[in-house]
């Protein structure tokens, strides 16, 4: 669609038509996802009432699918801020039409991930004990525990990314507010925060946006580093490693980019956004994915090398177990899906082919889930005392919660797609000629 002439008014029109009354498929999808969420919620209720024994965990493997999926979703949440904040500071142009969706992936990814520590607790009704609050007995959380750092990291990230998300939307929401009626006008009016688009407002707004971007940038690095320290700070073989923080951050961005591609492709078809999200945008994301695949692959190989080079018998044993033990398929799946399959993107034809983009992104999403699974489950299943080795089982309620979390994420995203603009109008317009340009 090279001859499609983009203008300010055309952009407003194209990017607000996404909010029109949805078609039937939308209601069907929302209902199906809602049922998935209900399955997960029912499983959780059952687990709370019966005890966490209804999940498949046992004594050596006390951390299982919940923590795996928790780390997975925190990882998914990482590309959003990377695209919106870091690429903004570097003035990367192609980010402008994809960053809104990527930020939504961040916020909803965190909203999903944040549930898992609660799901995982044996006594969820006392979850607030992990927060520092004044209490008569003087009880306080243990600040040496990486789990407490996690609480701070995740809540900070959720707060900052939500503020960044909503702030970035203010001028766009103002456009919608001007057209809306009834309760919608009130909702968008609140979100637009009295935006009139005056010069003074723009001056403050752009300054604030840079500050927020700078504030969010370190979080991209810090949050997943802290999540990785949940593992690296304990002396479990295969966890206790200094490489974990950069390794997890790279993996997080890797899976996050794959999820953004997976979300953008159907969205652009559904809303006819081809002039805004072009093949060039997807190709840029694919190049980025190739880069993170190389970083992640490097980390995998270094881990194996260090296990051999360190002469640490525990470390060597756990890597042999990962490769040839009970979960060999997960170990090899992560090598194939995360490292080898993305190598297709060296070839331009594959980077610009929608079926291949989808294929690689699905592979990376699966591979990154299995990466966390391998790290968490194999290490716990084979700790230091061979007598205590054991394997967990798979139960319906645990699967329901994991599947329900995926439904919950896409459910939130579908609601977002019909209530808020999925592509930033004001940033797209910044790259267009102003109206009357070149005319006297």
């Amino acid at each position, binding site marked *: 669609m090279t001859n499609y002439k983009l203008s300010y008014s055309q952009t407003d029109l194209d990017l607000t038509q996404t909010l029109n009354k949805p078609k039937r498929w939308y209601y069907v999808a929302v209902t199906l996802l809602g049922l998935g969420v209900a399955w997960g919620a029912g499983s959780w209720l059952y687990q709370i009432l*019966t*005890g*966490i*024994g209804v999940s498949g*965990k*046992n*004594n*050596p*493997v*006390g*951390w299982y699918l919940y923590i795996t999926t928790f780390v997975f979703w925190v990882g998914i949440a990482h590309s959003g801020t990377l695209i919106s904040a870091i690429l903004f500071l570097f003035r990367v142009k192609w980010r402008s039409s994809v960053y809104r969706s990527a930020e939504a992936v961040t916020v909803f990814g965190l909203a999903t991930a944040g549930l898992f*520590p609660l799901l*995982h*607790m*044996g*006594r969820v009704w*006392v*979850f607030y*004990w*992990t927060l520092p609050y004044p209490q008569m007995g003087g*009880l*306080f*959380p*243990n600040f*040496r*525990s*990486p*789990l*407490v750092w996690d*609480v701070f990291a995740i809540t900070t990230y959720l707060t900052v990314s939500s503020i960044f998300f909503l702030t970035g939307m203010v001028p766009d929401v103002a456009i919608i507010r001007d057209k809306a009626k009834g309760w919608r006008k009130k909702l968008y009016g609140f979100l637009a925060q009295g935006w009139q688009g005056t010069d003074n407002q723009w001056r403050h707004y752009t300054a604030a946006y840079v500050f927020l971007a700078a504030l969010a940038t370190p979080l991209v690095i810090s949050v997943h580093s802290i999540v990785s320290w*949940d593992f690296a*700070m*304990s*002396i*479990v073989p295969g966890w206790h490693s200094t490489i974990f923080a950069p390794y997890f951050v790279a993996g997080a961005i890797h899976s996050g980019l794959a999820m953004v591609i997976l979300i953008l492709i159907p969205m652009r078809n559904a809303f006819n956004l081809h002039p805004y999200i072009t093949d060039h945008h997807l190709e840029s994301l694919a190049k980025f994915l190739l880069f993170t695949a190389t970083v992640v692959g490097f980390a995998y190989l270094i881990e194996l090398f260090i296990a051999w080079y360190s002469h640490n018998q525990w470390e060597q044993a756990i890597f042999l177990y990962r490769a040839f033990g009970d979960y060999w398929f997960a170990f090899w799946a992560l090598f194939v899906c995360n490292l080898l399959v993305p190598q297709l993107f060296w070839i331009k034809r594959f980077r610009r082919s929608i079926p291949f983009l989808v294929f690689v992104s699905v592979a990376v999403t699966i591979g990154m889930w299995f990466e966390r699974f391998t790290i968490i489950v194999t290490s*716990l299943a084979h*700790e*230091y*005392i*061979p*007598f*205590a080795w*054991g*394997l*967990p*089982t798979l139960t319906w309620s645990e699967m329901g919660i994991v599947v329900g979390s995926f439904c919950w994420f896409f459910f939130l995203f579908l609601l977002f797609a019909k209530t808020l603009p999925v592509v930033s109008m004001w940033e797209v317009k910044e790259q267009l000629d102003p109206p009357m340009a070149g005319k006297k």
Partner: protein
Amino acid sequence: MPKWAMVIDLDKCTGCGACSVACKMENNIPIVDPEEARNGRAMVWMDMMTTVEGDYPNTHVKRVPKPCFHCDDPPCTLVCPVGATYRNPEGLVAQIYHRCIGCRYCMAACPFTAKSFNWYDPKWIEGASDVGNPDVSRRMVGVVEKCSFCSHRLQKVKENADIEDRQIRDGEYVPACLESCPADAIVFGDIENRDSDVSRLSRSYRVYRYGEDLGVKPKVYYLARRTGS
């Protein structure tokens, strides 16, 4: 300040499992259904590590009792988000059940898988639910528990010693597993007191500890068998 430690003489140990049973009764440890136990959810504080070596008929069964090692530098206490497990000044690694949120981080961090978890509402033997040991509080669903070196016995011993205004005598404070051991394979006491049996035995040439290369300094010492295998 005393520092409590245990020595288990594997040359004397017959592997009868009396220590496990005594511990279970002493500490009101819940009973777990057999199929749950097969799934790795058995609740024991004094475990019996059992391995069978060799091929039939030349098999050799090894049994090693494994309580919590009460590490001097415990990896489990560092990671607890709410401080529900901590090392007290006398070297006991304690667990506060009512503070536990059930995240199982300590279980993951323990190199020796010494902790148990209440996966369901705990159950006791039919009819025995009202005759448990009144000195030990019962645990509830969703909390981690583990060997306490029978610290409730230490409370009584301390009270007596305080009344009589003296130090605790060697062998005065002993856990239930030691009392029940028919072979006297378990020795318990203050390792800081060089005259105690525990201190003497911990300096034996036969001594080894699990995870000595991990730097966690377990306070349960094993005396290796003299016979080799």
